[in-house]
């Protein structure tokens, strides 16, 4: 793990991605623990729609709330939803993908056809449908995004697991009488950590975008709580009067997505044995 972090820090785009990610992670933690410059919900009717200043670095919004504080809370909210949804999706996808590859036959067919069904839905519409069923909220967003991305993890895990299953070391383990679950977790699972890691970073980027999109449509995080998508939606009608309301969440969202994309690129280079030689 530390070795991997060192490799990432040595990779040019990995370094930038990691730096941005750490800044956002700190902002997210501070935002969610309430250590923001102002209370994100505190309204100051006198200081409405003020541009960036020393008192309010990123200005204030229509209700005089501090944009920086809201941004920090929003990043925290986006991170929580993204991490949990990608966590659930990768876990679900890994279990389904591994068991589909291992048992093959009927189970494989059922799982993969069901994943085809989910993949045939446009991502945001599938998420919308799930959210309208359960009602908007943080955990509904987590569930919706997890269901949308689980099929991708299932496919990513199944493909390599299929070829690994036929390898000699798996046969050797079986002749020793190693249990199925042990082979699946230790021999297959550990060998699939590399593609899984890359996929997780990329999925985090999509999850951030999907969460922001759902909130933008009013079906994610509910006001008065802050989220990047909600801030963008609020900025829509005020962009000429108060452009910072648009720029701040737009740039923040872009940088957050960028950091995960850069990390994903770096991890792909580092974990791929072909490019690894080139880097070394």
């Amino acid at each position: 793990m530390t070795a991997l972090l060192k490799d990432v820090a040595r990779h040019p785009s990995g370094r930038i991605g990691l730096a941005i990610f750490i800044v956002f992670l700190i902002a997210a933690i501070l935002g969610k623990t309430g250590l923001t410059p102002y209370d994100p919900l505190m309204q100051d009717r006198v200081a409405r729609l003020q541009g960036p200043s020393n008192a309010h670095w990123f200005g204030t919004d229509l209700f005089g709330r501090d944009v920086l504080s809201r941004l920090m809370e929003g990043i925290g909210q986006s991170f929580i939803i993204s991490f949990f949804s990608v966590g659930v999706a990768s876990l679900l996808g890994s279990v389904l993908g591994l068991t589909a590859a291992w048992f093959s036959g009927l189970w494989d067919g059922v799982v993969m056809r069901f994943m085809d069904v989910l993949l045939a839905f446009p991502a945001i519409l599938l998420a919308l449908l799930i959210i309208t069923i359960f009602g908007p909220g943080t955990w509904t967003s987590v569930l919706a995004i997890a269901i949308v991305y689980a099929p991708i993890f299932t496919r990513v895990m199944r493909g390599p697991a299929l070829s690994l299953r036929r390898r000699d070391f798996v046969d050797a383990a079986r002749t020793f009488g190693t249990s199925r679950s042990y082979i699946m977790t230790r021999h297959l699972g550990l060998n699939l950590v590399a593609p899984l890691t890359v996929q997780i970073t990329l999925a985090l980027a999509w999850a951030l975008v999907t969460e922001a999109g759902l909130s933008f449509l009013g079906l994610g995080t509910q006001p008065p709580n802050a989220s990047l998508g909600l801030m963008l939606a609020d900025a829509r009608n005020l962009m000429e009067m108060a452009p910072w309301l648009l720029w701040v969440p737009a740039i923040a969202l872009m940088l957050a997505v960028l950091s995960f994309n850069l990390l994903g690129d770096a991890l792909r280079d580092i974990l791929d044995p072909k490019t690894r030689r080139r880097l070394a």
Partner: protein
Amino acid sequence: MPYPIKRLLVFPLVMLGVAIFVFVAIRLVPGDAITAMLGTESGLLTPAQRESLSAYFGLDQNWFVQFWRWLAGVLQGDLGISTTYGQPVMTIIWEHFPLTLELAVLSMLIALIIGIPAGIYAATNKDRPSDLIVRIVAMFGQSTPSFVVGLLLVYLLSVGFGVLPEMGTFVPITEDPVANLAQMILPAITLGTAFAAAVIRMSRSTMLDILQEDYVRTARSKGMPRRRVIWRHALPNALIPVITLSGVEFGYLLGGAVLVEQIFALPGLGRTVLNAILQRDYALVQGSVLFIAFNFMIVNLLVDLAYAALDPRIRFESK
């Protein structure tokens, strides 16, 4: 069994899965369709009126009967009647799909026209400053969500030029191509940005791989000019993965770009489905999702076939 035929065989199975999934999912949404259709006026209905409306839309039957009736209709090309529009679902889809199709085509054109030359240029100038610039631009393009691009474009246009995009009634391309393009260009650029970034990254990386292939080196050592090697030998092969990528992206775009349609107030398929979900318009949600899934799978099948046709190695490797 050849792969495309296997795909064709599972096609109806997956479509049936999509149909069942969406049928059940939309019925799990709390609230009933008649109330959603009439809004506050639904309170004025007498029980008898409510019953006759339910009977008209077939909502008085249990789920199994409703599903079989609907499925039988679908197989005969009848997707049912929308509760919000009071029109056949097929009519509504054909009204909104052309816009979505046009948007998808325009964004793909923008992506390919910008993406392929930029990717090739970056690959042939590897590690020079110009390559770095292209890569950075592509990375930013890929990292900016399309609805953010849309919002920023609207802002830049309104502040920089004092004009707002035409968001009144939508003009179909068949009525007035110029007015139509004026409305469509911003949404197309919006969707084309991330698409172009993906094309740049894909064409650059495949071109780099191909430039290291033996046949490229052979052509160069024969004394063939570099430019000719790139255009005649490397480019056609480098385009294969780009075509696959573009096809898949195109398939996604045919599903409607909900957020971008929302920002630019375009009556495309995405927004229609969004509203149908919020209105619990069962028939419209079922019909349009089925239509979208059908398109998506057809496009993916065509992409696979094109891939096999373009790359002889795959064609002859049939298992």
